[in-house]
């Protein structure tokens, strides 16, 4: 009996082991290699690769570019997460109707998520550059006297990237919050209407408790997306002007592929990983708590 069962399960176990093996080889092992490299001065173009202990990590403490990139990344992450979720909630409430036109609009709202970051970057670049479509339109209707540098000053570029990312992510958050809204019986809404609960009070007492569960996933995804982000910024500003929009992810790629400093790039990558881990832990913690309540 016992032996038959394990033989019969062998195929499945093999397949599962294969999956786990692939995960170990292509995710866990690269992580370990990257960790190892972070203690070296690996530089493919100078043919150096020696252990230098914690020197890379000490260097990070005084690296101004790294500090700027972290400030930029975190500002963007927090700003975009707040904006995309606020917009998602507002959009969800607005579109939470069953009429056909609303269903069409819901479909359209998700579209930015479907396009690749490269396309998103290029489309917005044609809109936002100095000679781009936005300045073209604004100056021709007389709203602007001269073109505004949407990507041409550090602060404007930060805001522009924030807007583009919010645009991309709010498609996602809208759908998540709509799902949460729709999982709640309509009667509850009607009861609230009959009880005369309105406006902000209604939002706080009725709507918010309904959509609150959606925040976990959509806040996490927003944060993680910004932390990982590469393609949109690479296309839109390339990190400029003057490195002011160089996210940490972009800085890692530049360190590795332009400055040839693989060892140091790995060390910075470990920092980004730690940052992501903090977010991940906070979220899995929250998820587990919810699992208990369900």
């Amino acid at each position, binding site marked *: 009996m016992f032996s038959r069962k394990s033989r019969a399960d062998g195929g499945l176990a093999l397949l599962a082991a294969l999956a786990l093996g692939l995960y170990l080889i292509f995710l866990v092992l690269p992580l370990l290699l990257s960790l190892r490299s972070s203690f070296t001065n690996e530089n*493919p*173009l*100078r*043919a150096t690769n020696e252990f230098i202990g914690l020197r890379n990590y000490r*260097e990070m403490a005084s690296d*101004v570019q790294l500090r700027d990139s972290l400030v930029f990344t975190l500002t963007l992450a927090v700003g975009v997460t707040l904006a995309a979720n606020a917009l998602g909630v507002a959009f969800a409430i607005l579109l939470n109707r069953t009429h056909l036109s609303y269903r069409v609009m819901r479909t359209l709202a998700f579209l930015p998520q479907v396009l690749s970051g490269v396309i998103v970057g290029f489309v917005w670049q044609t809109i*936002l*550059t*100095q*000679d781009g479509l936005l300045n073209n339109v604004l100056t021709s209707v007389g709203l602007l006297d*001269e*073109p*505004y*540098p*949407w*990507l*041409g*000053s*550090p602060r*404007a570029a930060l805001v522009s990237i924030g807007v583009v990312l919010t645009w991309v992510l709010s498609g996602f958050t809208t759908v998540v919050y709509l799902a949460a809204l729709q999982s709640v019986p309509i009667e509850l809404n009607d009861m609230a209407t009959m009880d005369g609960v309105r406006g902000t009070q209604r939002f706080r007492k009725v709507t918010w408790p309904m959509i609150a569960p959606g925040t976990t996933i959509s806040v996490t995804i927003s944060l993680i997306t910004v932390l990982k982000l590469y393609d949109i910024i690479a296309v839109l500003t*390339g990190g*400029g*002007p*003057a*490195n002011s929009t160089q996210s940490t992810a972009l800085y890692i790629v*530049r360190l*590795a*592929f*332009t*400055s*040839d*400093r*693989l060892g140091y790039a790995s060390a910075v990558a470990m920092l980004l990983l730690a940052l992501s881990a903090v977010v991940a832990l906070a979220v899995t913690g929250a998820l587990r708590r919810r699992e208990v309540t369900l």
Partner: protein
Amino acid sequence: MLRKTFLAACLAGLLAVTACSDGGGDSGGGSTLTYLTFETPHLTSTFWDNSIKAAQAEAPGVQINRITAPSTDRDAYAKQLQSSGQFPDLLQSITPSNFVGAGLLKPYDKAWVDANFLLPQGNALKGEVYIPPTNSQVVPEVFYNKELFTKAGIGAPPKNWAEFLDVCAKLKAAGITPFTLGGGDPFAASMPLVGIFSADVLGKNPNWLKDRYADKVKFSDANVVTAVEKYRTLVSNGYFDKGALGVKYADSITQFTGGKAAMYPMGSWFLGSVPKENADNFGAFPWPTDDGSVVIPFVVGGSMAISAKTKDPDGATKFAQAWSLNPANLKALIEGDGAFPMLKGKTLADYNVTVTKVFEDSYAYVTEDNTKVNAIGWATNDDALPPGLNDQFYAASQALFTSADVKGEMEKLDQAWKTATN
């Protein structure tokens, strides 16, 4: 139902995997070499394909697999390919110093170089030539719009810094933006700074970069800071468009040729973009110095480097040499990319090219006897910057567009130099 389609899909997937792994094998006979190129509006993919065909005729059996860099920054892409293990066999117009340290490039035969080029050591690294010095450039020249100069009552291009400032002031007073800057692309943003640095710092001390490598001078030295302050003067006087950092390089070309500004500091490759129909409206002068002496920020470029690890060094060399000496290739580079030819024993007429007056004037700066310095950030010889420093230099140029902290930016460059070279 789902199961069947599903199994079919899995099978298809596996088949595709094996099918893919079969592809890419050598197709027998000769060797296949990868060749990294880049494309511009003038060096189109047709140009590359034709030039490759012509060179293949002289290097029988060599097959070429051409790769195109995503931007004109071939070095970044070559490094990217190198660190991901696919360094090409042939690399067009790269900066050899980036790759020589790890022994990635194979030098050319000195006798062949000496026999064929005007400046055989023009881009040599420690005496070795990794790229045939086929052509040269001036980075930057100041291009100007004659009609706009006349409109502002300016008779002749400025000869020294004081006259230059005067010209800017007159243009501004006449309601004409003095400069176009493609500040959205870092390399283009750095052009005025390359001009100032080359004229003021390198013009006075042509060995400045060698001294920098020896730690005898610094970016934060007073003379450098004073020179760079000149750029701040131009910016704070409002001689650039306020939104210049949002202008892409490609757009800056159309802005300047469209008459939106009077001057455009850019590498001599801009000569290829001078509009044919009113080419005579454009002139060029070297970036002016304080005392009016002529300093030419000069770069000897060239054709392709050869990987030291290529599996067919003989074929690669034959191909590269044939390509480098083919006048037809230089014709395209001269006409389209404003390159100044450096082949021995040939005049412009030998290339059968039609060039503009402004090209001839610019070419004169190359052939005349004057002070030539290695343009900072562009030289590919011993005066090339350490890896990553170019980006820092560009970033500093962009930063100084909005920040007045010249000393601080120069200190950052010194710091970056230290991490890049230690």
